[in-house]
């Protein structure tokens, strides 16, 4: 098994009396897109700053690509690409100049740098606009360019702080698409913070939920959804009445059930099988036209975790 790309061991960071990151321990496997979820102020950006060695931990330690972020911060930064809270582009420079500057920062030889700029801008559809000043661009285009800049030096780890925040739906979708295709093509590990649950579900193989600096949940999105409590089912048909409802409520598989506008809303217990319940309803003389099963979304799980906090 490969070494993890990121390893936190009881990582903590204080700002005066405020504990921004608290006893955070987790591992991010190499080659994966990992989602780091949490509400505003949960400690996501501080964690990124700790990862990049921009801040010293108050307690514990973090290891990135085998380097200790406190003692070997320069090596960490040399092998990571980052797209932080703001796109960090120089508005007065052209797109090409922005990339050329970072090509020089990463010490790419001139010819290789030019080829790489062409490759990346071509991939995200911005090659024809490379001579334009970035200040005149839309937020979506800038974010794509910032993503290209983060990948310019072929980093082993890409750190993205809410890359689609503030984008409209089409722009966010375009950035997500570019991110997914570039990450797959480059074979890079991605550490992504977001509070967009749909984005995390779509992109990430594993997610961690952070709350007030502490790890609240960790796992694959589908596992977290399954752990997120009861799934629901909706049964539509004829003859669904109080008698059927009573039978369902007696079933050990059912946590709760109610009749709403002539159809049944059933909340199933964890791991419950729906098929015997459908048989039960049919056996009670009702005609079933449609059965829909809904599992908890990652957003439901996230909200439940935040609710626990309250």
């Amino acid at each position, binding site marked *: 098994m490969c070494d993890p790309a990121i390893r936190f061991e009881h990582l903590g960071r204080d*700002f005066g009396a405020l504990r921004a990151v608290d006893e955070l321990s987790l591992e991010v496997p190499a080659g994966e897109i990992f989602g780091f979820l949490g509400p505003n102020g949960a400690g996501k950006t501080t964690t990124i*700053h700790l990862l*990049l*060695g*921009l*801040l*010293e931990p108050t307690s514990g330690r973090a290891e990135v690509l085998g380097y200790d972020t406190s003692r070997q*911060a*320069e090596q960490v*930064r*040399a092998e*990571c690409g*980052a*797209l*932080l*809270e*703001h*796109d*960090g*582009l*120089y*508005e*007065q*420079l052209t797109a090409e*100049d922005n990339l050329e*500057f*970072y090509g*020089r*920062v*990463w*010490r790419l030889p001139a010819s290789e740098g030019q080829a790489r700029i062409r490759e990346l801008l071509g991939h995200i559809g911005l090659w024809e606009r490379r001579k334009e*000043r970035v200040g005149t661009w839309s937020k979506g285009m800038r974010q794509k360019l*910032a993503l290209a800049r983060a990948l310019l030096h072929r980093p082993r780890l890409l*750190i993205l702080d809410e890359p689609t925040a503030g984008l409209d739906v089409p722009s966010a979708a375009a950035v997500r698409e570019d991110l997914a295709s570039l990450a797959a093509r480059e074979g890079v590990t991605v550490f992504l913070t977001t509070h967009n649950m749909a984005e995390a579900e779509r992109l990430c193989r594993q997610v961690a939920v952070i709350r007030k600096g502490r790890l609240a949940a960790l796992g694959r999105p589908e596992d977290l959804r399954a752990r997120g409590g009861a799934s629901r089912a909706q049964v539509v048909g004829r003859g669904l009445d109080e008698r059927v409802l009573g039978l369902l409520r007696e079933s050990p598989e059912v946590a709760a059930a109610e009749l709403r506008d002539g159809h049944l809303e059933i909340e199933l217990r964890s791991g419950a099988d729906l098929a015997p319940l459908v048989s039960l309803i049919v056996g009670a003389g009702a005609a079933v036209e449609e059965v829909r099963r809904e599992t908890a979304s990652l957003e439901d799980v996230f909200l439940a975790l935040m609710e626990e906090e309250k």
Partner: protein
Amino acid sequence: MIADILTVMWKERKALFRARGRRSQTILALATPLLMAIVLPIQVESDWLSGVLSLLLAFFVTLLVVGITIPDAFAGEREHHTLATLLASRLPDRAILIGKAAVCVLLGWGITLAALAVGLVSMNVAHWQGSFRFYTATTLIADVSLSLLLAILVASVGVLFSLRSASVQEAQQTLMAVMMLPAVLMQGVAFVLLGSTSGRERVRAFFSTVSYGEIVLAVAAVLVVLDALLVAMVLARFRRARLIQG
């Protein structure tokens, strides 16, 4: 390290000269010193080549150019939200600091030398005496060296203020106010001393015992000490962790 400094200088140079709208701003900012560099030498004639006037112009131009560009280079990175990305790169702290400061210092010093050259040409053209007259050695050395030392001083103070300022404008205003303070104090002292006959006598007596070269040396020594202290302070304070929390 040298390659990293040159990289930062490459970016700063591009940002300074390629920005749309910046050119007109620069021309406007340079109009006053350029006008002074033409008019003053014509008025004072040969005194321009050996007196303190060219040094005053050199100080003014250096203060103006470095005072405008340094906050833009440092506080500007924070204001435009480009600082965090720059700090997340592999560039060492000192390469960022030196690269940015070097462009501002060299630009300020370069424009100062250009202004002195314009002044020299202006004086010669206006008061032509059959051959081209040049600055005296003391004046030339004083103008060239003291303006460079002042540029480093303004740049260092500018970086320190920029690290604490939320915006370019705030940093520029604080820097200019602080840099004008010694001139205002000196004016006050001069007013008190020259206000009375005895004071004027004392000043005359003092200046009769020291040469211009000795005064230049004393000023240079003070500037070297101040520069060394301020550069050490800047090097100590320009740290990623401090900047990212800024």
